């Protein structure tokens, strides 16, 4: 009965693995417990789970064991304002498709991940911010003759499948040929390989790629945004108090220099001056 014994060992091993995996998960999704509601209640416990992108240079990027980027710095500012030390933050990778479910299900407390505020999303989550106004733009090779979305006719444009930028190209610029991938890094690789003529998404994301060492001097952002994408900080739909608190923290950050520092330490390195955080545009959290 050697097989039986082997199976038993295997089973035991798996259970151990499962428990380990499960434990790791629980630590991550342990939000929603505790008496106080919303992120303020969660922050009172000294811990906060923040969802960020992991593959977006300059905004949210896993570099080694840490996360870096503008979104990450904004996340730190919010955590600090809520009284959570940096050691109390747990970073969690989110992708565009799972931001709403993560917030709704309480797997993250807040999301700072190139998250455009729009009416559709407002139905399911509450947004603090915007902390930045991005706009859809084009990333093209330095020598390209493309000067804006109008000159895209007959050109190959790359974006992420099902994303808002891809949809806009399909509906507003029908003469452009659309190539879709599941990540922007693949689009940028295709651009570097000369397989597409332009990559389109928010200017700030494109600037992050253009500033990468790997692509230094090869690409430029066209610089004619053709949409307005206010980036917000997502929290649970019913957490209006938490949302208001985030806006207060952002108001302080706009004046005390921490917002500018967040920019200068990340995207500002490419030489772009820090934008103004326009506090008059902050959401009303309803």
């Amino acid at each position, binding site marked *: 009965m050697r097989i039986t014994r082997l199976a038993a060992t295997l089973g035991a091993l798996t259970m151990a693995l499962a428990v380990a995996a499960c434990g790791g998960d629980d630590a991550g999704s342990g939000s929603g417990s505790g008496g106080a509601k919303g992120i303020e209640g969660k922050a009172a416990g000294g811990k906060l789970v923040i969802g960020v992108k992991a593959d977006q240079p300059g905004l949210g990027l896993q570099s080694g064991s840490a996360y870096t980027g503008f979104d990450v710095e904004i996340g730190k500012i919010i955590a600090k304002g809520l009284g959570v030390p940096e050691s109390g933050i747990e970073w969690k990778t989110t992708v565009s*498709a799972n931001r709403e479910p993560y917030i709704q299900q309480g797997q993250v407390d807040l999301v700072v991940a190139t998250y455009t505020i729009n009416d559709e999303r407002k139905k399911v989550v509450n947004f603090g911010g915007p902390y930045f106004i991005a706009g859809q733009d084009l990333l093209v090779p330095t020598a390209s003759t493309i000067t804006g979305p109008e000159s895209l006719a007959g050109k*190959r444009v790359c974006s992420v*499948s*099902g994303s808002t930028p891809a949809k806009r190209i399909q509906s507003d610029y029908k003469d452009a*040929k659309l*190539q*879709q*991938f599941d990540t922007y890094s693949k689009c940028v690789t*295709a651009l570097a390989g000369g*397989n597409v003529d332009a990559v389109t998404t928010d200017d700030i994301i494109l600037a992050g790629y253009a500033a990468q060492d790997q692509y230094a001097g090869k690409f430029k952002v066209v610089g004619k945004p053709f949409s307005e994408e206010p980036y917000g900080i997502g929290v649970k739909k019913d957490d209006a108090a938490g949302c208001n608190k985030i806006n207060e923290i952002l108001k302080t950050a706009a004046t005390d220099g921490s917002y500018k520092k967040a920019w200068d330490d990340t995207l500002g390195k490419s030489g772009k001056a820090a934008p103004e955080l326009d506090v008059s545009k902050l959401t009303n959290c309803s």
Partner: protein
Amino acid sequence: MDVFSDPLNRDVYITGFLWILKLTLAGGVGALVLGVVLAAMRVSPVPVLRGFGTAWVNIFRNTPLTLIIFFCYFGLFSTLGFSVVDDIDLNNFWLGVIGLSVYTAAFVCEAIRSGINTVPAGQAEAARAIGMTFIQTLTIIVLPQAGRAVIAPLGSILIALCKNSTIVGTIGLMESSNAMKDLINANGNAVIPIFLVFAGTFAIVLIPTGYGFGWLANRLAVKR
């Protein structure tokens, strides 16, 4: 089911499954031809051919299809400059067909090789005794008999191929899985009906196909 009463959404659904159908048919033909050639290589007298066949099977059978499709775009097309047509969708379709074919051929090859093993040794010995060459023995005597024995496994491979063709969506083809993602993104309130319609379409087509192959395999089985 309100989602599907909108003709635009119905178009997304139909286009998605049309791509799946085309990918399955083209990929199936490619995989079958390639798989038979590979199987012949693996049982051939020439060591270098055998080695090539073995290497092919071990490499492609053990790599996730997601990666193979990825290599078709970024390796074959982007780096090696292999391109079929200028149209983006159509070119991606053919790149997907190539990826599905080389991947599935590894499984077809193994199925046929084990089918060859079901043909009694005496058959091949008799063929050789009357002076047939390797190619003749294989194509006239062994493969026709092996072919009947592998109908059932080939059926399963075809079904797997059909489901696998959803993975071509990762290089941008709007096949059924991307179509489903699109519809769910736009109709968050109808996640379950959308899933049931997409999954149901696969089930309604593939379950009878599976039984059909089983029936065919029984009918054509070589009685010994």
